[in-house]
């Protein structure tokens, strides 16, 4: 692999010169800029256009991306992001907006946010949404800040937030960041919240429980209504982590399950770019009782005009500059309009069918963490493989040789040697069959040639890294050497 940075390539005089010397006089920088502000050297590489094109094309090819490969990364919902989202979000009328423009000149943008909120309220049952959060994690923080302010406004000082032992790591982290003590409730032998144990934990000091449903084992919390009753009876609230909302679209909603606050990860359920692929957005929705606590501003409508409303009685305040990552909202809106009600329902159904297809085809080869019908994702345990000396990590690395992105590994924490597979609805049966075939093949390789797995990947530009050194001494900075 060519590991050189572009700054380390080229040599003087190799660049193309398309720009002709202008006919007017050129002012030298030191004539107009004080000497102390001028740098003596500017280490720009000197390369021809062709070399630059080749450099960046090769760099792009090192990506292991959804557009090129199957990406069953559990809990991340790596569905295909339709290119039309990007196209419409790039319309001049959107990208040339300035956040300081007068409200009467941005009516279209405000209407889009307002309409998006309408659709999400219908899907989730919530009363109102804010789109300010820059990510799902920030959405969680806003949601929990709302819960805290709600209890404060009632003069109730509660210190405890309950999370299940299978929860996403962000749940306890968010609760702790909001100043709460985190209390963990165990799962029962079906992989669901243990109701008896929960009943013992819930008291007048309980501010909320944070749940994702289906949970991180891909199982539907079928006792959700009893859980809701237990918490509400003691004056606590239910927070819905919308990371796993995909399989419920159009089938049920968090309000029917008793939740009071929720966030949605647009990059998961609503096909906007993930992580480093672009800015994020986490919508936070609330029931009527909590509308007065939303961050400012929210988009409102009066006399057929849209405006930013700053008058919210118990608002938790501002959480971000301007109004969220607007381009992400456009992409989610396009996706929702394209699919419509029937389309969203089929998204949910197909995501569940795809996961169950993989579960049934592979359960004879890999142990199931819990042997019940799953929702949008299925969690296997590589415990049998581990006994033969091959770990979930080895299997994940080997998948890369077959051009498949590894599933989420070692999560949820309560499953040993976990592999969490979420195929999403956008994959064809052919792709699922290929994945199944490869997983069975890898299981055979463990008996025939375990070293092949332990030394994998063999075909990737980067082989096994020293994980300790990578975590302790990451090399993140380019140092220019003369």
């Amino acid at each position, binding site marked *: 692999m060519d590991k050189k940075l572009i700054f380390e390539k080229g040599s003087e005089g190799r660049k193309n010169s398309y720009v002709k010397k202008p006919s007017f006089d050129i002012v030298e920088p030191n004539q107009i800029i004080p000497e102390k502000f001028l740098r003596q050297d500017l280490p720009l590489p000197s390369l021809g256009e062709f070399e630059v094109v080749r450099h960046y094309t090769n760099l792009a090819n090192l990506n292991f991306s959804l557009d090129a490969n199957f990406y069953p990364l559990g809990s991340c919902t790596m569905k295909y992001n339709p290119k039309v989202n990007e196209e419409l979000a790039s319309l001049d009328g959107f990208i040339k907006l300035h956040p300081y423009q007068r409200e009467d000149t941005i009516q279209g943008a405000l209407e889009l946010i307002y309409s998006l909120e309408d659709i999400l309220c219908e899907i989730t049952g919530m009363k109102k949404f804010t789109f300010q959060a820059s990510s799902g994690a920030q959405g969680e923080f806003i949601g929990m800040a709302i819960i805290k302010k709600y209890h404060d406004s009632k003069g109730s000082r509660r210190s405890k937030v309950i999370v299940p032992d299978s929860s996403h790591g962000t749940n306890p982290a968010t609760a702790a960041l909001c100043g709460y003590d985190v209390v963990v409730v165990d799962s029962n032998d079906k992989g669901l919240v243990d109701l008896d144990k929960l009943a013992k934990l819930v008291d007048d000091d309980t501010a909320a429980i944070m749940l994702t449903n289906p949970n991180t084992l891909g199982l539907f919390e079928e006792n959700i209504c009893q859980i809701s009753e237990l918490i509400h009876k003691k004056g606590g609230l239910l927070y819905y982590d919308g990371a796993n909302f995909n399989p419920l679209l159009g089938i049920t909603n968090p309000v029917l399950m008793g939740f009071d606050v929720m966030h949605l990860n647009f990059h998961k359920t609503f096909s906007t770019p993930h992580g480093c692929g672009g800015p994020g957005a986490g919508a936070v929705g609330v029931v009527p009782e909590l509308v007065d606590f939303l961050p400012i501003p929210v988009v409102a409508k009066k006399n057929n005009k849209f405006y930013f409303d700053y008058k919210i009685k118990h608002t938790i305040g501002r959480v971000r500059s301007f109004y969220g990552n607007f381009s992400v909202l456009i992409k989610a809106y396009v996706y929702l309009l394209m699919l419509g009600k029937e389309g969203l329902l089929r998204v949910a159904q197909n995501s569940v069918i795809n996961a169950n297809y993989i579960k049934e085809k592979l359960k004879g080869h890999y142990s199931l963490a819990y042997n019940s019908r799953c929702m949008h994702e299925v969690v296997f345990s590589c*415990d049998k493989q581990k006994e033969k000396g091959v770990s979930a*990590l080895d299997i994940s690395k080997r998948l890369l040789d077959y051009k498949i992105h590894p599933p989420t590994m*070692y999560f949820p*924490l309560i499953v*040993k040697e976990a592999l969490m597979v979420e195929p999403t609805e956008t994959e064809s049966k052919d792709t699922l069959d290929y994945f199944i075939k490869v997983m069975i093949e890898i299981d055979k390789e463990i008996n025939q040639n375990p070293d092949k797995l332990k030394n994998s990947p063999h075909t990737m530009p980067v082989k096994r890294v020293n*994980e*300790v050194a990578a*975590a*302790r001494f990451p090399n993140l900075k380019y140092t220019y050497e003369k």
Partner: protein
Amino acid sequence: MDGMKYTKSHEWVKIENGVAVIGITDYAKDQLGDVVFIELPDVGQRVVKSSQLGTVESTKTASEIYTPLTGEVIAVNDGLVDNPQWVNESPFEKGWMVKIKLSDENQLNDLLDEGAYKEFVSKEKH
């Protein structure tokens, strides 16, 4: 290993002249994966049985280390903080974590011997 005692939370304890040397077991190390960060208590700190002694963070997860014994921390393995890989390489020797001067030697009776620990681990695997 000779004279070693174990806990159900996968710490090992070795007694040398009324002082307990504590680390995490080979099995714990295997479960955690590569350890990348370790937080240890201060020397002089009083610790009570079953309370948190420190934190071990691996590429997979973060988990707590618990003290199975009450007493005073009289030494910590300073080098370990900068060389967490010692736990990966040699959990029973180079990877020792703290030394505790015991307040109550009777607590040693609550620990598992090697046979009992091995049996516990084999049950946990299944």
